[in-house]
Protein backbone atom coordinates (compact mmCIF):
# COMPACT_ATOMS: atom_id res chain seq x y z
CA UNK A 1 0.00 0.00 0.00
CA UNK A 2 1.42 3.37 -0.96
CA UNK A 3 -0.86 6.34 -0.94
CA UNK A 4 0.69 9.72 -1.58
CA UNK A 5 -1.07 12.61 0.09
CA UNK A 6 -0.30 16.26 -0.54
CA UNK A 7 -1.81 18.72 1.91
CA UNK A 8 -1.61 22.45 1.19
CA UNK A 9 1.84 21.99 -0.36
CA UNK A 10 3.62 25.26 -1.11
CA UNK A 11 6.92 26.14 -2.69
CA UNK A 12 8.52 29.56 -2.86
CA UNK A 13 11.82 30.62 -4.31
CA UNK A 14 12.44 33.76 -2.32
CA UNK A 15 9.46 36.04 -2.85
CA UNK A 16 8.23 34.04 -5.87
CA UNK A 17 5.52 31.47 -5.15
CA UNK A 18 5.84 28.52 -7.53
CA UNK A 19 3.36 26.15 -5.91
CA UNK A 20 0.53 27.92 -4.17
CA UNK A 21 -1.10 25.39 -1.89
CA UNK A 22 -1.83 22.07 -3.56
CA UNK A 23 -4.01 19.26 -2.20
CA UNK A 24 -3.86 15.94 -4.00
CA UNK A 25 -4.80 12.43 -2.85
CA UNK A 26 -3.13 9.68 -4.79
CA UNK A 27 -4.44 6.22 -4.08
CA UNK A 28 -2.43 3.05 -3.88
CA UNK A 29 -1.61 1.55 -7.29
CA UNK A 30 -3.01 4.55 -9.05
CA UNK A 31 -1.48 6.03 -12.21
CA UNK A 32 -1.66 9.78 -11.75
CA UNK A 33 -0.55 12.25 -14.39
CA UNK A 34 0.36 15.87 -13.63
CA UNK A 35 -0.27 17.88 -16.74
CA UNK A 36 -0.11 21.55 -17.56
CA UNK A 37 1.62 24.11 -19.72
CA UNK A 38 5.33 24.72 -19.19
CA UNK A 39 6.05 26.69 -16.07
CA UNK A 40 2.88 25.49 -14.31
CA UNK A 41 4.90 23.89 -11.51
CA UNK A 42 4.25 20.25 -12.38
CA UNK A 43 7.91 19.25 -12.45
CA UNK A 44 8.63 21.22 -9.28
CA UNK A 45 5.77 19.40 -7.57
CA UNK A 46 7.17 16.03 -8.67
CA UNK A 47 10.65 17.00 -7.49
CA UNK A 48 9.17 17.97 -4.14
CA UNK A 49 7.59 14.53 -3.85
CA UNK A 50 10.97 13.03 -4.80
CA UNK A 51 12.78 15.09 -2.19
CA UNK A 52 14.94 16.96 -4.68
CA UNK A 53 13.26 20.25 -3.82
CA UNK A 54 12.46 21.32 -0.30
CA UNK A 55 8.84 21.88 0.70
CA UNK A 56 8.23 25.45 1.85
CA UNK A 57 4.95 24.70 3.57
CA UNK A 58 2.35 21.97 3.84
CA UNK A 59 2.51 18.27 4.47
CA UNK A 60 3.59 15.42 2.20
CA UNK A 61 3.04 11.85 3.24
CA UNK A 62 3.86 8.63 1.47
CA UNK A 63 2.36 5.39 2.75
CA UNK A 64 0.89 7.16 5.75
CA UNK A 65 4.22 8.60 6.90
CA UNK A 66 5.18 12.28 6.82
CA UNK A 67 8.20 12.52 4.53
CA UNK A 68 8.72 16.30 4.24
CA UNK A 69 12.19 16.10 5.73
CA UNK A 70 13.32 12.66 4.57
CA UNK A 71 16.07 12.32 1.98
CA UNK A 72 15.01 11.08 -1.47
CA UNK A 73 16.46 7.64 -0.85
CA UNK A 74 14.45 7.19 2.35
CA UNK A 75 11.07 8.02 0.82
CA UNK A 76 10.64 4.72 -1.00
CA UNK A 77 10.47 6.36 -4.39
CA UNK A 78 12.32 5.91 -7.66
CA UNK A 79 12.50 8.51 -10.37
CA UNK A 80 12.93 8.43 -14.13
CA UNK A 81 14.31 11.70 -15.47
CA UNK A 82 13.56 13.43 -18.75
CA UNK A 83 17.23 13.29 -19.75
CA UNK A 84 17.46 9.71 -18.37
CA UNK A 85 20.35 10.89 -16.14
CA UNK A 86 22.23 7.61 -16.52
CA UNK A 87 25.71 7.49 -15.01
CA UNK A 88 27.84 7.87 -18.17
CA UNK A 89 30.93 6.19 -16.71
CA UNK A 90 29.13 3.02 -15.64
CA UNK A 91 27.89 0.06 -17.64
CA UNK A 92 24.18 -0.66 -17.89
CA UNK A 93 24.61 -3.33 -15.21
CA UNK A 94 26.34 -0.92 -12.82
CA UNK A 95 23.81 1.81 -13.54
CA UNK A 96 21.00 -0.49 -12.54
CA UNK A 97 22.77 -1.93 -9.52
CA UNK A 98 24.11 1.37 -8.16
CA UNK A 99 21.38 1.96 -5.60
CA UNK A 100 21.66 -1.57 -4.23
CA UNK A 101 25.43 -1.27 -4.05
CA UNK A 102 25.09 1.93 -2.03
CA UNK A 103 22.64 0.14 0.24
CA UNK A 104 25.33 -2.56 0.74
CA UNK A 105 23.13 -5.34 -0.62
CA UNK A 106 25.13 -8.58 -1.15
CA UNK A 107 26.49 -8.89 -4.69
CA UNK A 108 24.59 -12.12 -5.41
CA UNK A 109 21.30 -10.43 -4.60
CA UNK A 110 22.22 -7.36 -6.68
CA UNK A 111 22.94 -9.63 -9.66
CA UNK A 112 19.64 -11.41 -9.20
CA UNK A 113 17.59 -8.22 -9.07
CA UNK A 114 19.45 -6.54 -11.92
CA UNK A 115 19.12 -9.62 -14.14
CA UNK A 116 15.42 -9.85 -13.36
CA UNK A 117 14.88 -6.21 -14.34
CA UNK A 118 16.99 -6.69 -17.45
CA UNK A 119 14.85 -9.65 -18.44
CA UNK A 120 11.62 -7.71 -18.00
CA UNK A 121 12.93 -4.79 -20.06
CA UNK A 122 14.74 -6.99 -22.61
CA UNK A 123 18.06 -5.37 -21.84
CA UNK A 124 20.05 -8.63 -21.47
CA UNK A 125 22.31 -8.16 -24.52
CA UNK A 126 23.21 -4.60 -23.53
CA UNK A 127 24.26 -5.14 -19.93
CA UNK A 128 27.98 -4.46 -20.43
CA UNK A 129 27.60 -1.38 -22.61
CA UNK A 130 28.05 2.18 -21.48
CA UNK A 131 25.08 4.57 -21.92
CA UNK A 132 26.73 6.39 -24.83
CA UNK A 133 26.56 3.17 -26.87
CA UNK A 134 22.76 2.96 -26.46
CA UNK A 135 19.93 4.47 -28.46
CA UNK A 136 17.44 6.85 -26.87
CA UNK A 137 14.86 4.14 -26.35
CA UNK A 138 17.42 1.79 -24.81
CA UNK A 139 18.62 4.52 -22.44
CA UNK A 140 15.05 5.09 -21.41
CA UNK A 141 14.69 1.39 -20.64
CA UNK A 142 17.85 1.45 -18.52
CA UNK A 143 16.50 4.45 -16.62
CA UNK A 144 13.28 2.53 -15.98
CA UNK A 145 15.31 -0.56 -15.05
CA UNK A 146 17.25 1.47 -12.52
CA UNK A 147 13.92 2.47 -10.98
CA UNK A 148 12.51 -1.07 -10.97
CA UNK A 149 15.56 -2.51 -9.23
CA UNK A 150 14.93 -0.27 -6.23
CA UNK A 151 11.51 -1.89 -5.83
CA UNK A 152 9.97 1.44 -4.87
CA UNK A 153 6.54 2.12 -3.42
CA UNK A 154 6.08 5.00 -5.83
CA UNK A 155 7.49 5.50 -9.32
CA UNK A 156 8.01 9.10 -10.40
CA UNK A 157 8.34 9.95 -14.08
CA UNK A 158 9.42 13.44 -15.17
CA UNK A 159 8.47 13.85 -18.84
CA UNK A 160 10.22 10.56 -19.63
CA UNK A 161 9.17 10.35 -23.26
CA UNK A 162 9.78 13.87 -24.49
CA UNK A 163 13.27 13.09 -25.83
CA UNK A 164 12.06 10.17 -27.95
CA UNK A 165 10.77 10.25 -31.50
CA UNK A 166 7.05 9.91 -32.12
CA UNK A 167 6.97 6.19 -32.95
CA UNK A 168 9.12 5.23 -29.96
CA UNK A 169 7.07 7.46 -27.72
CA UNK A 170 3.90 5.53 -28.51
CA UNK A 171 5.70 2.24 -27.94
CA UNK A 172 7.19 3.32 -24.58
CA UNK A 173 3.83 4.75 -23.55
CA UNK A 174 2.30 1.33 -23.98
CA UNK A 175 5.19 -0.31 -22.14
CA UNK A 176 4.93 2.02 -19.16
CA UNK A 177 1.17 1.45 -19.02
CA UNK A 178 1.79 -2.31 -19.11
CA UNK A 179 4.45 -1.98 -16.45
CA UNK A 180 1.93 -0.21 -14.28
CA UNK A 181 -0.48 -3.10 -14.42
CA UNK A 182 2.34 -5.67 -13.99
CA UNK A 183 3.97 -4.08 -10.97
CA UNK A 184 0.82 -2.81 -9.33
CA UNK A 185 2.79 0.19 -8.13
CA UNK A 186 1.70 3.76 -7.56
CA UNK A 187 2.96 5.92 -10.39
CA UNK A 188 3.13 9.69 -10.73
CA UNK A 189 3.87 10.91 -14.20
CA UNK A 190 4.55 14.46 -15.34
CA UNK A 191 3.96 15.54 -18.92
CA UNK A 192 2.97 18.57 -20.92
CA UNK A 193 1.46 16.29 -23.55
CA UNK A 194 -2.26 15.92 -22.96
CA UNK A 195 -2.41 12.85 -25.22
CA UNK A 196 -0.01 11.05 -22.87
CA UNK A 197 -2.08 12.22 -19.94
CA UNK A 198 -5.37 11.05 -21.48
CA UNK A 199 -4.05 7.66 -22.59
CA UNK A 200 -2.12 6.63 -19.48
CA UNK A 201 -3.81 8.14 -16.45
CA UNK A 202 -6.27 6.75 -13.98
CA UNK A 203 -6.43 10.28 -12.67
CA UNK A 204 -5.21 13.52 -14.19
CA UNK A 205 -4.17 16.55 -12.20
CA UNK A 206 -4.31 19.70 -14.33
CA UNK A 207 -2.01 22.43 -13.02
CA UNK A 208 -1.65 26.02 -14.00
CA UNK A 209 0.39 28.73 -12.31
CA UNK A 210 1.09 26.55 -9.28
CA UNK A 211 -2.58 25.85 -8.64
CA UNK A 212 -4.60 22.68 -9.25
CA UNK A 213 -7.26 23.52 -11.81
CA UNK A 214 -8.99 20.15 -11.73
CA UNK A 215 -8.42 16.55 -10.68
CA UNK A 216 -10.35 13.80 -12.39
CA UNK A 217 -10.40 10.81 -14.69
CA UNK A 218 -9.44 11.52 -18.31
CA UNK A 219 -13.04 11.39 -19.52
CA UNK A 220 -14.25 13.42 -16.59
CA UNK A 221 -11.88 16.21 -17.62
CA UNK A 222 -12.96 15.82 -21.22
CA UNK A 223 -16.70 15.80 -20.62
CA UNK A 224 -16.91 17.82 -17.42
CA UNK A 225 -14.12 20.41 -17.44
CA UNK A 226 -14.36 22.51 -14.31
CA UNK A 227 -13.30 25.69 -16.01
CA UNK A 228 -12.31 27.26 -19.29
CA UNK A 229 -8.61 26.53 -18.80
CA UNK A 230 -9.12 22.77 -18.41
CA UNK A 231 -11.62 22.76 -21.27
CA UNK A 232 -9.08 24.41 -23.54
CA UNK A 233 -6.12 22.35 -22.34
CA UNK A 234 -7.66 18.89 -22.65
CA UNK A 235 -8.56 17.81 -26.17
CA UNK A 236 -6.91 18.36 -29.51
CA UNK A 237 -7.55 20.45 -31.55
CA UNK A 238 -8.44 22.77 -28.74
CA UNK A 239 -12.03 23.63 -27.82
CA UNK A 240 -13.78 26.53 -29.59
CA UNK A 241 -15.01 29.35 -27.40
CA UNK A 242 -17.81 31.67 -28.51
CA UNK A 243 -19.30 34.65 -26.69
CA UNK A 244 -23.03 34.13 -26.26
CA UNK A 245 -25.93 35.89 -24.56
CA UNK A 246 -28.38 34.13 -22.25
CA UNK A 247 -31.93 34.18 -23.62
CA UNK A 248 -33.60 31.99 -21.06
CA UNK A 249 -32.94 29.98 -17.91
CA UNK A 250 -35.07 26.90 -17.27
CA UNK A 251 -34.76 23.69 -15.18
CA UNK A 252 -33.78 21.72 -18.31
CA UNK A 253 -31.00 24.11 -19.22
CA UNK A 254 -29.83 27.53 -20.32
CA UNK A 255 -30.89 28.89 -23.70
CA UNK A 256 -28.28 31.02 -25.44
CA UNK A 257 -28.14 32.87 -28.71
CA UNK A 258 -25.42 31.64 -31.07
CA UNK A 259 -23.54 34.00 -33.37
CA UNK A 260 -25.79 34.08 -36.42
CA UNK A 261 -28.99 34.19 -34.43
CA UNK A 262 -29.87 30.53 -33.69
CA UNK A 263 -31.01 29.63 -30.19
CA UNK A 264 -29.49 26.66 -28.40
CA UNK A 265 -30.67 25.02 -25.21
CA UNK A 266 -27.59 23.78 -23.37
CA UNK A 267 -28.40 21.17 -20.69
CA UNK A 268 -26.58 22.74 -17.77
CA UNK A 269 -27.61 23.87 -14.32
CA UNK A 270 -28.38 27.55 -14.74
CA UNK A 271 -27.61 28.56 -11.18
CA UNK A 272 -27.07 32.30 -10.96
CA UNK A 273 -27.26 32.87 -14.74
CA UNK A 274 -30.03 35.20 -15.84
CA UNK A 275 -31.37 36.51 -19.11
CA UNK A 276 -29.01 38.98 -20.75
CA UNK A 277 -25.83 37.59 -19.11
CA UNK A 278 -22.75 37.18 -21.27
CA UNK A 279 -21.42 33.60 -21.15
CA UNK A 280 -18.83 31.66 -23.12
CA UNK A 281 -19.99 28.65 -25.07
CA UNK A 282 -17.41 25.89 -25.47
CA UNK A 283 -17.73 23.29 -28.17
CA UNK A 284 -15.04 20.84 -29.25
CA UNK A 285 -14.04 20.68 -32.94
CA UNK A 286 -15.01 17.01 -33.08
CA UNK A 287 -18.54 17.86 -31.95
CA UNK A 288 -19.17 20.18 -34.87
CA UNK A 289 -20.51 18.46 -37.94
CA UNK A 290 -21.49 19.62 -41.37
CA UNK A 291 -25.22 20.05 -41.70
CA UNK A 292 -27.84 19.43 -39.07
CA UNK A 293 -27.71 19.98 -35.31
CA UNK A 294 -29.64 21.73 -32.55
CA UNK A 295 -28.11 24.98 -33.66
CA UNK A 296 -26.17 26.21 -36.65
CA UNK A 297 -22.98 28.17 -37.14
CA UNK A 298 -22.21 29.46 -40.61
CA UNK A 299 -18.98 30.83 -41.96
CA UNK A 300 -16.25 30.62 -44.57
CA UNK A 301 -13.62 27.89 -44.58
CA UNK A 302 -10.23 29.65 -44.63
CA UNK A 303 -7.95 26.64 -44.27
CA UNK A 304 -8.74 22.97 -44.82
CA UNK A 305 -6.36 20.30 -43.46
CA UNK A 306 -6.97 16.76 -44.65
CA UNK A 307 -5.58 14.11 -42.32
CA UNK A 308 -7.28 11.22 -44.10
CA UNK A 309 -9.49 9.96 -41.31
CA UNK A 310 -10.62 13.44 -40.40
CA UNK A 311 -10.56 16.88 -41.93
CA UNK A 312 -9.89 20.04 -39.95
CA UNK A 313 -11.68 23.09 -41.26
CA UNK A 314 -10.70 26.49 -39.90
CA UNK A 315 -13.85 28.53 -40.32
CA UNK A 316 -14.34 32.27 -39.99
CA UNK A 317 -17.82 33.09 -38.71
CA UNK A 318 -19.76 36.13 -39.87
CA UNK A 319 -18.79 38.01 -36.66
CA UNK A 320 -15.09 37.44 -37.43
CA UNK A 321 -14.45 34.70 -34.82
CA UNK A 322 -12.32 31.75 -35.99
CA UNK A 323 -13.43 28.27 -35.04
CA UNK A 324 -12.07 24.83 -35.81
CA UNK A 325 -14.26 21.95 -36.93
CA UNK A 326 -13.17 18.34 -37.18
CA UNK A 327 -15.38 16.98 -39.95
CA UNK A 328 -15.45 13.72 -41.84
CA UNK A 329 -12.30 12.69 -43.70
CA UNK A 330 -14.34 12.36 -46.87
CA UNK A 331 -15.84 15.83 -46.59
CA UNK A 332 -15.87 17.84 -49.81
CA UNK A 333 -15.18 21.15 -48.04
CA UNK A 334 -12.87 23.42 -50.02
CA UNK A 335 -11.14 26.64 -49.08
CA UNK A 336 -13.46 29.67 -49.34
CA UNK A 337 -16.59 27.48 -49.22
CA UNK A 338 -19.49 28.83 -47.22
CA UNK A 339 -20.25 26.07 -44.75
CA UNK A 340 -22.86 25.34 -42.16
CA UNK A 341 -21.84 23.53 -38.97
CA UNK A 342 -24.31 21.80 -36.72
CA UNK A 343 -23.95 22.08 -32.93
CA UNK A 344 -25.32 19.32 -30.70
CA UNK A 345 -26.46 20.93 -27.48
CA UNK A 346 -25.50 18.03 -25.17
CA UNK A 347 -21.82 18.36 -26.21
CA UNK A 348 -21.69 22.04 -25.37
CA UNK A 349 -20.25 23.69 -22.27
CA UNK A 350 -21.05 27.06 -20.79
CA UNK A 351 -18.56 29.14 -18.82
CA UNK A 352 -19.34 32.16 -16.70
CA UNK A 353 -17.44 35.42 -16.71
CA UNK A 354 -15.18 34.00 -13.96
CA UNK A 355 -14.17 31.13 -16.28
CA UNK A 356 -15.93 28.47 -14.19
CA UNK A 357 -18.11 25.94 -15.99
CA UNK A 358 -21.84 25.69 -15.35
CA UNK A 359 -22.40 22.11 -14.16
CA UNK A 360 -23.76 19.70 -16.74
CA UNK A 361 -27.25 18.45 -15.96
CA UNK A 362 -26.35 14.84 -16.73
CA UNK A 363 -23.11 13.09 -15.88
CA UNK A 364 -21.40 11.43 -18.83
CA UNK A 365 -21.68 7.64 -18.47
CA UNK A 366 -17.93 7.13 -18.97
CA UNK A 367 -16.76 10.00 -16.78
CA UNK A 368 -15.72 7.69 -13.95
CA UNK A 369 -14.00 5.02 -16.05
CA UNK A 370 -10.41 4.47 -15.00
CA UNK A 371 -10.98 5.34 -11.39
CA UNK A 372 -11.91 1.78 -10.48
CA UNK A 373 -8.78 0.61 -8.68
CA UNK A 374 -8.93 1.79 -5.10
CA UNK A 375 -10.91 4.78 -6.28
CA UNK A 376 -13.52 6.86 -4.57
Amino acid at each position, binding site marked *: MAEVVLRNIKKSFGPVDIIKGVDIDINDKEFVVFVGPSGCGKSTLLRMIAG*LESITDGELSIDGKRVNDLS*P*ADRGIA*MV*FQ*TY*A*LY*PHMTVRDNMG*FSLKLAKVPQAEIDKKVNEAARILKLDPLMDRKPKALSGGQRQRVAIGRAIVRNPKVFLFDEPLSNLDAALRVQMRIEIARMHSDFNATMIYVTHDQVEAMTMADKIVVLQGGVVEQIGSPLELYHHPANRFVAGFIGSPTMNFLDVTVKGVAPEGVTVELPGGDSLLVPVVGGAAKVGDQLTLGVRPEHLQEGAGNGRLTGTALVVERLGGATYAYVKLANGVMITAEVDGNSHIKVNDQIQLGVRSETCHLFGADGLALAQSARHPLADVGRGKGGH
Partner: protein
Amino acid sequence: MSMPSTFQKPPRWIPILAWVIAVLIFFPIFWMALTSFKTETEAISTPPSLFFTPTLENYNDVIDRSNYARFVWNSIAVSFGSTLLALALAIPAAYAMAFFPTKRTPSTLLWMLSTKMMPPVGVLIPMYLIFKTLGLLDTVTGLLIIYTLINLPIVVWMLYTYFKDVPGEILEAGRVDGANPMQELFLLLLPLAVPGIASTGLLSVILSWNEAFWSLNLTSSQGAPLTAFIASFSSPQGLFWAKLSAASLMAIAPILVVGWMSQRQLVSGLTFGAVK
Protein backbone atom coordinates in the same frame (compact mmCIF):
# COMPACT_ATOMS: atom_id res chain seq x y z
CA MET B 1 33.58 15.30 -35.16
CA SER B 2 32.48 15.48 -38.76
CA MET B 3 32.42 18.81 -40.54
CA PRO B 4 29.31 19.89 -42.36
CA SER B 5 29.64 19.25 -46.09
CA THR B 6 29.40 22.97 -46.85
CA PHE B 7 32.51 23.65 -44.75
CA GLN B 8 34.97 25.69 -46.82
CA LYS B 9 38.70 25.17 -46.75
CA PRO B 10 40.41 28.07 -45.00
CA PRO B 11 42.45 30.40 -47.23
CA ARG B 12 46.02 29.25 -47.94
CA TRP B 13 47.66 32.08 -45.98
CA ILE B 14 46.20 30.82 -42.68
CA PRO B 15 48.52 27.80 -42.35
CA ILE B 16 51.46 29.98 -43.42
CA LEU B 17 50.59 32.53 -40.74
CA ALA B 18 50.26 29.73 -38.21
CA TRP B 19 53.73 28.48 -39.08
CA VAL B 20 55.22 31.96 -38.82
CA ILE B 21 53.69 32.47 -35.38
CA ALA B 22 54.80 29.01 -34.26
CA VAL B 23 58.37 29.66 -35.40
CA LEU B 24 58.40 33.06 -33.67
CA ILE B 25 57.23 31.48 -30.43
CA PHE B 26 59.63 28.58 -30.68
CA PHE B 27 62.67 30.61 -31.78
CA PRO B 28 63.81 31.81 -28.31
CA ILE B 29 63.73 28.24 -27.02
CA PHE B 30 65.60 27.02 -30.07
CA TRP B 31 68.18 29.81 -29.66
CA MET B 32 68.54 29.01 -25.98
CA ALA B 33 69.12 25.34 -26.78
CA LEU B 34 71.71 26.31 -29.41
CA THR B 35 73.48 28.74 -27.07
CA SER B 36 73.71 26.15 -24.32
CA PHE B 37 76.07 24.12 -26.51
CA LYS B 38 78.37 27.08 -27.30
CA THR B 39 81.34 28.40 -25.35
CA GLU B 40 80.78 31.64 -23.42
CA THR B 41 82.77 33.61 -26.04
CA GLU B 42 80.79 32.19 -28.93
CA ALA B 43 77.59 32.86 -27.07
CA ILE B 44 78.10 36.63 -26.95
CA SER B 45 79.84 37.05 -30.35
CA THR B 46 78.25 39.40 -32.92
CA PRO B 47 77.15 38.44 -35.45
CA PRO B 48 76.01 35.27 -33.66
CA SER B 49 77.78 32.19 -34.93
CA LEU B 50 75.47 29.59 -36.39
CA PHE B 51 78.18 27.06 -37.02
CA PHE B 52 80.29 26.01 -34.06
CA THR B 53 81.64 22.93 -32.38
CA PRO B 54 79.05 21.87 -29.80
CA THR B 55 80.32 21.43 -26.27
CA LEU B 56 78.83 20.00 -23.10
CA GLU B 57 81.17 22.14 -21.00
CA ASN B 58 78.35 24.45 -19.83
CA TYR B 59 76.28 21.56 -18.57
CA ASN B 60 79.25 20.19 -16.65
CA ASP B 61 79.96 23.60 -15.16
CA VAL B 62 76.35 24.14 -14.18
CA ILE B 63 76.10 20.77 -12.50
CA ASP B 64 79.47 21.25 -10.77
CA ARG B 65 78.61 24.70 -9.56
CA SER B 66 75.29 23.87 -7.96
CA ASN B 67 73.16 21.08 -6.65
CA TYR B 68 70.87 20.64 -9.67
CA ALA B 69 69.17 17.60 -8.15
CA ARG B 70 68.05 19.56 -5.11
CA PHE B 71 66.56 22.34 -7.21
CA VAL B 72 64.74 19.79 -9.35
CA TRP B 73 63.43 18.02 -6.30
CA ASN B 74 62.26 21.31 -4.75
CA SER B 75 60.51 22.26 -7.98
CA ILE B 76 58.78 18.91 -8.18
CA ALA B 77 57.80 19.03 -4.53
CA VAL B 78 56.37 22.54 -4.62
CA SER B 79 54.57 22.31 -7.97
CA PHE B 80 53.02 18.87 -7.53
CA GLY B 81 52.52 19.33 -3.80
CA SER B 82 50.81 22.69 -4.19
CA THR B 83 48.69 21.33 -7.04
CA LEU B 84 47.46 18.40 -4.96
CA LEU B 85 46.77 20.68 -2.04
CA ALA B 86 44.96 23.20 -4.25
CA LEU B 87 42.84 20.44 -5.83
CA ALA B 88 41.98 19.03 -2.41
CA LEU B 89 40.74 22.44 -1.31
CA ALA B 90 39.19 23.49 -4.62
CA ILE B 91 37.20 20.33 -5.46
CA PRO B 92 34.80 20.60 -2.50
CA ALA B 93 34.55 24.37 -3.01
CA ALA B 94 33.78 24.09 -6.73
CA TYR B 95 31.35 21.21 -6.05
CA ALA B 96 29.44 23.29 -3.55
CA MET B 97 29.37 26.37 -5.76
CA ALA B 98 28.42 24.49 -8.93
CA PHE B 99 25.63 22.36 -7.48
CA PHE B 100 24.45 24.19 -4.37
CA PRO B 101 24.77 27.82 -5.41
CA THR B 102 23.50 30.59 -3.17
CA LYS B 103 22.83 34.13 -4.22
CA ARG B 104 26.35 35.06 -3.11
CA THR B 105 28.12 32.42 -5.21
CA PRO B 106 28.81 34.65 -8.25
CA SER B 107 30.27 37.40 -6.05
CA THR B 108 32.38 34.86 -4.16
CA LEU B 109 33.81 33.60 -7.44
CA LEU B 110 34.55 37.12 -8.60
CA TRP B 111 36.16 37.98 -5.29
CA MET B 112 38.41 34.93 -5.56
CA LEU B 113 39.50 36.00 -9.02
CA SER B 114 40.04 39.57 -7.88
CA THR B 115 42.84 38.39 -5.60
CA LYS B 116 44.75 37.61 -8.79
CA MET B 117 44.36 41.17 -10.03
CA MET B 118 46.67 42.79 -7.54
CA PRO B 119 50.39 42.73 -8.44
CA PRO B 120 52.12 40.33 -6.03
CA VAL B 121 54.80 42.91 -5.27
CA GLY B 122 52.11 44.87 -3.46
CA VAL B 123 52.05 42.29 -0.67
CA LEU B 124 55.71 41.30 -0.81
CA ILE B 125 56.77 43.04 2.39
CA PRO B 126 53.93 41.79 4.61
CA MET B 127 54.35 38.29 3.18
CA TYR B 128 58.09 38.42 3.74
CA LEU B 129 57.59 39.47 7.34
CA ILE B 130 54.96 36.80 7.95
CA PHE B 131 57.24 34.16 6.45
CA LYS B 132 60.14 35.42 8.54
CA THR B 133 58.10 35.32 11.76
CA LEU B 134 56.84 31.83 11.02
CA GLY B 135 60.29 30.59 10.03
CA LEU B 136 59.10 29.72 6.54
CA LEU B 137 61.75 31.68 4.62
CA ASP B 138 63.78 29.49 2.25
CA THR B 139 61.68 26.39 2.96
CA VAL B 140 59.81 24.09 0.59
CA THR B 141 56.83 24.20 2.96
CA GLY B 142 56.67 27.98 2.65
CA LEU B 143 56.65 27.91 -1.14
CA LEU B 144 54.13 25.07 -1.11
CA ILE B 145 51.75 27.17 0.96
CA ILE B 146 52.12 30.30 -1.12
CA TYR B 147 51.81 28.45 -4.47
CA THR B 148 48.69 26.70 -3.25
CA LEU B 149 47.19 30.02 -2.30
CA ILE B 150 48.07 31.86 -5.49
CA ASN B 151 46.79 29.06 -7.74
CA LEU B 152 43.64 28.34 -5.73
CA PRO B 153 41.42 30.97 -7.42
CA ILE B 154 42.27 29.70 -10.90
CA VAL B 155 41.88 26.07 -9.87
CA VAL B 156 38.48 26.76 -8.29
CA TRP B 157 37.36 28.71 -11.35
CA MET B 158 38.38 26.03 -13.80
CA LEU B 159 36.89 23.19 -11.76
CA TYR B 160 33.71 25.21 -11.27
CA THR B 161 33.40 25.55 -15.06
CA TYR B 162 33.99 21.84 -15.64
CA PHE B 163 31.60 20.81 -12.88
CA LYS B 164 28.94 23.11 -14.33
CA ASP B 165 29.09 21.01 -17.50
CA VAL B 166 28.10 17.85 -15.61
CA PRO B 167 24.30 17.57 -15.78
CA GLY B 168 22.83 18.10 -12.33
CA GLU B 169 20.24 15.41 -12.98
CA ILE B 170 22.96 12.76 -12.84
CA LEU B 171 23.77 13.78 -9.28
CA GLU B 172 20.06 13.99 -8.46
CA ALA B 173 19.59 10.47 -9.79
CA GLY B 174 22.42 9.48 -7.45
CA ARG B 175 20.66 11.16 -4.56
CA VAL B 176 17.46 9.24 -5.32
CA ASP B 177 19.58 6.08 -5.49
CA GLY B 178 20.79 6.79 -1.96
CA ALA B 179 24.16 8.45 -2.48
CA ASN B 180 25.27 10.84 0.28
CA PRO B 181 27.10 14.05 -0.71
CA MET B 182 30.52 12.37 -0.39
CA GLN B 183 29.45 9.44 -2.58
CA GLU B 184 27.94 11.86 -5.08
CA LEU B 185 31.27 13.65 -5.24
CA PHE B 186 33.57 10.64 -5.39
CA LEU B 187 31.47 8.06 -7.24
CA LEU B 188 29.67 10.30 -9.71
CA LEU B 189 31.09 13.79 -10.13
CA LEU B 190 34.84 13.14 -10.01
CA PRO B 191 34.85 10.23 -12.50
CA LEU B 192 32.86 12.41 -14.90
CA ALA B 193 35.13 15.41 -14.48
CA VAL B 194 38.47 13.57 -14.80
CA PRO B 195 39.53 15.37 -18.03
CA GLY B 196 38.76 18.73 -16.47
CA ILE B 197 40.55 17.90 -13.22
CA ALA B 198 43.58 16.61 -15.14
CA SER B 199 43.95 19.74 -17.25
CA THR B 200 43.37 21.96 -14.23
CA GLY B 201 46.06 20.05 -12.35
CA LEU B 202 48.48 20.25 -15.23
CA LEU B 203 47.97 23.98 -15.59
CA SER B 204 48.53 24.44 -11.88
CA VAL B 205 51.76 22.36 -12.05
CA ILE B 206 53.06 24.45 -14.96
CA LEU B 207 52.16 27.75 -13.30
CA SER B 208 53.89 26.70 -10.08
CA TRP B 209 56.90 25.34 -11.93
CA ASN B 210 57.45 28.63 -13.75
CA GLU B 211 56.60 30.92 -10.86
CA ALA B 212 59.62 33.16 -10.24
CA PHE B 213 58.57 36.18 -8.21
CA TRP B 214 57.88 34.50 -4.88
CA SER B 215 60.54 31.84 -5.22
CA LEU B 216 63.24 34.43 -5.88
CA ASN B 217 62.12 36.63 -3.02
CA LEU B 218 61.33 34.05 -0.39
CA THR B 219 63.96 31.39 -0.99
CA SER B 220 67.68 31.40 -1.58
CA SER B 221 69.20 27.95 -1.30
CA GLN B 222 67.56 25.23 0.84
CA GLY B 223 64.04 25.77 -0.38
CA ALA B 224 64.87 27.18 -3.80
CA PRO B 225 63.29 25.67 -6.91
CA LEU B 226 64.63 25.71 -10.48
CA THR B 227 63.60 29.31 -11.16
CA ALA B 228 66.06 30.43 -8.47
CA PHE B 229 68.62 28.07 -9.97
CA ILE B 230 68.36 29.80 -13.38
CA ALA B 231 68.47 33.23 -11.83
CA SER B 232 71.71 32.40 -10.06
CA PHE B 233 73.46 32.38 -13.45
CA SER B 234 72.63 35.97 -14.25
CA SER B 235 74.69 37.47 -11.49
CA PRO B 236 76.48 40.78 -11.01
CA GLN B 237 79.85 39.02 -11.45
CA GLY B 238 79.26 38.83 -15.17
CA LEU B 239 77.15 37.44 -17.95
CA PHE B 240 77.11 33.73 -18.40
CA TRP B 241 74.85 33.41 -21.43
CA ALA B 242 75.86 29.89 -22.30
CA LYS B 243 75.59 28.62 -18.72
CA LEU B 244 72.33 30.49 -18.24
CA SER B 245 70.98 28.78 -21.35
CA ALA B 246 72.16 25.38 -20.22
CA ALA B 247 70.58 25.89 -16.80
CA SER B 248 67.32 27.12 -18.35
CA LEU B 249 67.14 24.14 -20.65
CA MET B 250 67.71 21.82 -17.71
CA ALA B 251 65.00 23.67 -15.80
CA ILE B 252 62.34 23.41 -18.47
CA ALA B 253 63.23 19.87 -19.56
CA PRO B 254 61.20 18.01 -16.89
CA ILE B 255 58.03 20.08 -17.35
CA LEU B 256 58.44 19.90 -21.12
CA VAL B 257 58.38 16.10 -20.92
CA VAL B 258 55.33 16.13 -18.62
CA GLY B 259 53.56 18.59 -20.91
CA TRP B 260 54.39 16.56 -23.98
CA MET B 261 53.07 13.37 -22.45
CA SER B 262 49.83 14.95 -21.28
CA GLN B 263 49.28 17.07 -24.39
CA ARG B 264 46.26 15.09 -25.52
CA GLN B 265 44.69 15.20 -22.08
CA LEU B 266 45.37 18.93 -21.79
CA VAL B 267 43.84 19.82 -25.14
CA SER B 268 40.78 17.66 -24.57
CA GLY B 269 40.45 19.22 -21.13
CA LEU B 270 40.68 22.77 -22.38
CA THR B 271 37.99 22.18 -25.00
CA PHE B 272 35.85 20.08 -22.65
CA GLY B 273 32.37 21.50 -22.79
CA ALA B 274 33.10 23.65 -25.81
CA VAL B 275 32.06 20.86 -28.14
CA LYS B 276 29.37 18.36 -27.35
